[in-house]
């Protein structure tokens, strides 16, 4: 069963350990602008939301890529990026509806999450499990259960 990275903004503390881990694993330096995951925070409300590539099944970044640099890996849910084939046209950057494919002028490459090939370092670095790497068919189980538990408690009170 394929997995994907599930975000739980309600748990996110805004610490950016995921951002740091991604930058370090990919670039061996701490440069948040080189991270494939970003965290946006709303300080008045105290809310943070991590954002990274969703590995779309019908991926616009791969569809528009004229050279096959951005491509689906056979038999996998992963959309990967092959810099050697890339002509830096940045059509993938234009096409991604989430803004999750980014051009980095420092390395002259496209930055996009590749799930660290099935072992995402951001997930390992998250101290509060606000991002988890889960089986795609049961991805929302924990979220549903939180509400199911509240429902259960309400019933208990009535009974």
């Amino acid at each position: 069963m394929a997995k994907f990275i599930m975000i739980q903004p309600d748990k996110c503390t805004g610490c950016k350990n995921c951002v740091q881990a991604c930058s370090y694993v990919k670039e061996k330096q701490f440069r948040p602008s080189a991270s494939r995951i970003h965290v946006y925070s709303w300080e008045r409300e105290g809310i943070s939301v991590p954002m990274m590539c969703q590995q779309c099944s019908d991926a616009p970044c791969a569809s528009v890529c004229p050279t096959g640099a951005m491509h689906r890996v056979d038999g996998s849910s992963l959309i990967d990026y092959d810099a050697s084939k890339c002509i830096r046209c940045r059509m993938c950057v234009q096409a991604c509806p989430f803004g999750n494919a980014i051009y980095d002028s420092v390395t002259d490459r496209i930055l996009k999450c590749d799930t660290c090939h099935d072992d995402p370092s951001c997930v390992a670095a998250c101290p509060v499990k606000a991002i988890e790497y889960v089986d795609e068919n049961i991805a929302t189980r924990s979220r549903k259960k939180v509400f199911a538990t509240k429902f259960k408690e309400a019933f208990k009170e009535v009974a």
Partner: protein
Amino acid sequence: MNGWTGTTLRVNLTTGDIKKEPTNLQDARNFIGARGLASKILTDEIDPKIDPLSPANKLIFAPGPLSGTMAPSMGRYDVVCKAPLTNLIAASNSGGSFGPELKFAGYDMVILEGAAKKPAYLWIKDDAVELRDASAVWGMNVPDTTDALRAVTDEDAKVACIGPAGEKKVLFASIMNEMGRAAGRSGVGAVMGSKMLKAIVVVGTKPVTVADPDAFEKAVMVAREKISTHPVGGTGLRVYGTDVLVNILNSVGSLPTRNFHDGYFANADKFGGESLTAKYLTRPRGCFSCIISCGRATKVTNPKFAGEGEGPEYESAWCFGSDCGIDDMDAITKANYICNDLGLDTITMGSTIACAMDLYESGHISLKDTGGMAVPFGDPELMVKLVEMTGNREGFGDQLAEGSYRLATRYGHPEFSMTAKMQEMAAYDPRGVQGIGLNFATNNRGGCHVRGYTISPEVLGVPFKVDQHATEGKPGLVITFQNLTAALDSCGTCLFTTFGIGADELAALLSAVTGIQYSTEDFMKAGERIWNLERMFDLKSWITAKDDKIPERMMKEAIHTGPSKGEVSHVDQMLPEYYQLRGWDAKGVPTPEKLKELSLA
């Protein structure tokens, strides 16, 4: 260059000159960064006798060599200057992402000199640095300033700014970053206000690198493991916040109550961490690279005190709570929000209100002094109103804006001020916990708890338990904690990492990041060096050994109720040994031999 960026930014607000200088790497090796390195620069460059609110003062923003890396919970920065509240050296540190962002922009420090003639803000985008007009945001509170400056710079910029309190030079004004994070103590915000500098706005896109990746990764894994499996660092602080300490300190009879008349408060649980989590917490928050998540995003729904924001921390809950004889958590949290919005240090604010209440109930101030307001202990609405009035220097608030020492002295009763060296003591009763009293008495910034947090062994039993009431062994313990904290502050490290790790792990991280080998002894020696550097500045400013003290109430008035009933502080008995172990003479002055040993001669 690893750890340090190698570049220091120097901005003269009088002339508008902006310069980039190489960071002095010999000093960086000896004083590490943040608090230590910035203090070295300040003590080299300013006369300790200057008026802290004059253009002669300098204001230094300094992250540490570990800030901006993934070292866990190590993204803090210090603000260093001469402090208006104490007339001593100030280093107030704050979390959030501001410190790391300065590093990503390429700077180890920003040194601000002189004073602008009209409101200004500093806009840093990597190499591009610009002083801009801040007239449009002058007078705005902290969140509105933050939003307004992001709108004209970059929507994701990190903003450190002052609120109205800093502009009006309230002597304990804070500098706030990302709205809810504070460089709180000693009045660093008033210094920023005196320079007419409303904010520093920064965006950085450059890398912070480490010298030895293999050693660094190992050191990070070890530190993360030890902190995350520790009951306080790994669980307690995330679940309950620092406010978990209310019930703990009350249970050992050391929760100061009604301006330190007592050390026990019957209704403490109403404003403790358990109540905070149950009724107010929206979610835990973490600073940059934090794995502890003690920050509190909270909400108050009671229409009288409604609001949303961060806090309260333990010390804030205490000073607006039991210290003012108040148990209303809605009001306490609201007071905290107002401090964040106006830019005020919560501890000095609450303790100054408690002092005013004490003076009022003792008949030393009257209605004519307060502009007709009755100021009794235990009135939550009054307390919240006084916070607002102080931040804006309105009415009686203008007197509170000077802090409790000047307030009490104005009415002829300085003994009512619960301060050491004019800085209000934090939420730990020195009569019930002997070591912390000695730390307050000897602390380089007055009544500060975080730079010699002996509460850890004396109350929490971390890393080992000692008897809170004993005086034996406390001078050595205080010194160890003071030196350790000086070194860890200088890395950009959060004090709470010591709920899990200590000098061994920090020395390993610092070595791996900078490529300079620090043994545990080197690390502790750097801390001692920094402590002595600060001490020398303070001695040259105004203090002598007779100022190494806490209020006489702590020696003369025993705790009335609770588990520490009958206890008084014995600071005087511990002080000679403290001086001796420090290598200082009987007058509390570092000996020439000690200064030479520390390369400070």
